């Protein structure tokens, strides 16, 4: 049976097992209909021109995993940022694992989507924010809404500061031959509040996994959101990540995406600037090899005047890997005095590697400064020669140059442990140890 039909037919069973809130029930049914109409996107659609889902949709994914909680902390420790104190939300095969997690309701709410959807205490927040800014351009988001059940619910109240970073980690155990997980996260950051979040999806075995994740982030007046996505999964795991960020006046949101692995990774990242003087940062480092495929699809929609956005994506592609960058800056007629920058730099290391870039500007306001730059090239031979003439071996010299290439994305990372972790992963990726941090 095709995955689409399977999902549609299993929807009824899903609803019967989990119909707790009539509002959500209606939304789910509506979303399923939308998915039924849209289906999975094909290469004929402009936004999916360079990314084919055929091989990803092929396995017979199980939609309802059996609950079998066998993971110990020592198995997953290395996937967590464990050297600092954090709140943890750990999900195993899409199911919350209480003994691996650490939540709180003290001043800030760091808890579960399932309880937020069922408890009346959270109803106002759910009513105000749940599923309000998602786009319906492709079937993935409605599909996630139809099956939305579990995920992270984070609410930082007015004038509060999340005292520790929050980690959201999804593990796939491989208990199923093939598994599809659909996490749903909602993050609401009230006025003057501040939060740091780290998100990761990790498969523990080589059984195929398809993750269709949707995250909604709301930043109120003067809120600061600092979000990191670490994507370094196995070659059998694919991720479709849909993130939507809405910003109010003077808010500051930054999103760093580190893509180092996975069969296919698609990041649909959408920023909507609704308040004046808001600032958005979208940065990413992609280093992949083999037949891996990473697709960054970004949208920054400037709706209000006097805002800024900065995009900086770096990619290093080896062997048969494919990189896609599809960035769009949209400036509305009313959004005057906008500064929008977009940069995309890529290095191809091998003959079979491919990069497809499509940086777009759509501008309807005249008093703006918008620019984009896109380059594709290779490591500079002169620089390599310079380093080698000073006794640095070729491999290390190459690694040094690649470090330097990716460095300005790392500069804006505010959690030192993440910087260290990413440095470590880059070094591992390049197979060298330079013995220093950038």
């Amino acid at each position, binding site marked *: 049976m095709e995955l689409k039909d399977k999902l549609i037919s299993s929807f009824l069973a899903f609803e019967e097992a989990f119909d707790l809130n009539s509002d959500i029930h209606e939304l789910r049914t509506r979303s399923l209909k939308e998915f039924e109409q849209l289906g999975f996107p094909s290469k004929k659609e402009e936004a999916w021109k360079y990314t084919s889902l055929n091989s990803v949709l092929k396995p017979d994914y199980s939609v309802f995993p059996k609950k079998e909680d066998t993971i110990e902390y020592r198995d997953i420790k290395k996937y967590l940022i464990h050297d600092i104190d954090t709140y943890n939300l750990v999900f195993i095969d899409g199911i919350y694992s209480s003994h691996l997690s650490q939540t709180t309701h003290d001043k800030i709410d760091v808890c579960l989507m399932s309880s937020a959807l069922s408890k009346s205490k959270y109803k106002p927040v759910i009513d105000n924010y749940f599923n309000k800014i998602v786009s319906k351009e492709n079937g993935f988001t409605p599909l996630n809404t139809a099956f939305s059940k579990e995920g992270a619910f984070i609410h930082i109240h007015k004038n509060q500061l999340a005292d520790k970073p929050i980690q959201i980690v999804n593990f796939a155990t491989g208990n199923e031959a093939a598994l599809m997980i659909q996490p749903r996260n909602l993050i609401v950051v009230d006025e003057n509040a501040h939060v740091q979040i780290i998100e990761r999806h990790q498969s523990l075995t080589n059984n195929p996994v398809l993750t269709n994740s949707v995250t909604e982030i709301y930043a109120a007046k003067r809120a600061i959101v600092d979000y990191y996505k670490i994507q370094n999964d196995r070659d059998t795991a694919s991720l479709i990540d849909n993130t939507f960020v809405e910003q109010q006046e003077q808010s500051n949101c930054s999103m760093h995406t580190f893509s180092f692995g996975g069969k296919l990774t698609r990041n649909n990242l959408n920023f909507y600037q609704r308040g004046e003087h808001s600032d958005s940062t979208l940065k990413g480092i992609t280093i992949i090899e083999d037949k891996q495929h990473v697709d960054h699809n970004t949208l920054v929609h400037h709706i209000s005047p006097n805002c800024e956005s900065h995009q900086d994506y770096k990619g290093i592609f080896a062997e048969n890997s494919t990189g896609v960058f599809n960035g769009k800056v949209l400036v509305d007629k009313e959004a005057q005095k906008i500064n929008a920058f977009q940069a995309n730099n890529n290095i*191809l290391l091998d003959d079979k590697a491919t990069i497809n870039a499509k940086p777009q500007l*759509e501008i*309807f306001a005249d008093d703006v400064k918008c620019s984009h730059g896109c380059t*594709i090239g290779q490591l500079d031979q002169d620089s390599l020669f310079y380093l080698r003439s000073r006794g640095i071996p070729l491999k290390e010299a190459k690694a040094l140059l690649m470090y330097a290439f990716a460095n300005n994305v790392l500069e804006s990372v505010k959690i030192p442990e993440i910087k260290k972790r990413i440095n470590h992963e880059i070094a591992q990726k390049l197979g060298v140890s330079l013995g220093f941090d950038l």
Partner: protein
Amino acid sequence: MAYTEDDLKKELETKEYEYGFYTDIESDTFPIGLNEDVVRAISKKKEEPEWMTDWRLESYRAWEKMKEPEWANVRYKKPDFQAISYYSAPNKKPKYDSLDEVDPELRATFEKLGISMDEQKMLAGVAVDVVMDSVSVGTTFKKTLAEKGIIFCSISEAIREHPELVKKYLGTVVPQRDNFYAALNSAVFSDGSFCYIPKGVRCPMELSTYFRINQAGTGQFERTLLVADEDSYVSYLEGCTAPSRDENQLHAAVVELIALDGAEIKYSTVQNWYPGNKEGKGGVYNFVTKRGICEANAKISWTQVETGSAVTWKYPSCILKGDNSIGEFYSIAVTNNFQQADTGTKMIHLGKNTRSTIISKGISAGQSQNSYRGLVQINSRAENARNFSQCDSLLMGNKCGAHTFPYIEVKNKTAMVEHEATTSKIGEDQIFYCNQRGIPTEKAIALIVNGFSKEVLNKLPMEFAVEAQKLLEISLEGSVG
């Protein structure tokens, strides 16, 4: 009172099309509609051999099955292809050796355009092949060209007199089934130019064809085929103005350039067809397919100044097939009032050490929409390919839009591709700087717009640069000094 940007905007909006006039020449026009019989009739009218008729019919059959493309960032009322007359030719087909014999009314037309043939003949040394309503009415300098072995004539003449060349190259760069409008053009093209430069010959003068759409209700389907044989050089100019008319006119031309080993082709266009009035009524639909193929060490350079047409949909492209070949694209697109332009280029790198440069300047005013859409494709065998692209947009007023849709596809690690784009308005500080130095605002804007487009204007041949300036004036009067 100081001249401000608002004044300029007002002036731009109210500026009527200066070259809108209509020459009353009796035309031999086909009834409207399109079917196989019409295609046959066109072919017969032009006394074409059978293979050509078959070629047209093949294209027509392919066209029938195709759908009109909708992906471009333009909105317009689709033309009714059955409401167009597909053939129109001036009645008295003159064959003159000197200008004096030319119909005085026709000559007056050219004088109004400011391209007096006498003047051009004497001063510029340009051979002008005047295409008026699709049929070539006068070719000058043919003799000088003939001495060098250069063939420069209308395409219908070429089909009759040089069938071997036409047969060999026609449709090799833009196949009949390439796209909807190319197929339509292949079926019904009425006339156009053919040019062949023999081996090792450097064409001594700029070749130029003046296109004009003259007859109400006739779409122009020009077909240009330009072949530069090994190690030859040619510079070709194409310029257009059209009379003011309320009805939308369709123009679907096809231009094919073939640069064989070591050849160089420079193709310059100035397009100033009727853009519609300030309510967005009328104007020409310009859907053009232009493409060139470069063999080893060859070079093709496209330069265009687009100021007219209600809807423009045009991507002059280069296929860099041979090793060490070079493709260039320089463009200025000015849109005003309700004009829409979706233009850009495609650079397909197939050979080793191929290079391409793209410089695109867009100026939008009024309520117009101006898009750049380009593709740079480096294929896996194109070692050491190099591309540099730059797209700058200038916005005047907040009712217009500027869009950039570049596609970059790279499959070779040795490739170096750079793309940059900026969008801005004329800076207040720039104007202030000029004012400080005693330059009035009007002049300052002129200076800035001029500077903005200079990179492209510089690429035009001398004779054409003057004219391009003139045409920019019509679109942005008061801003170009």
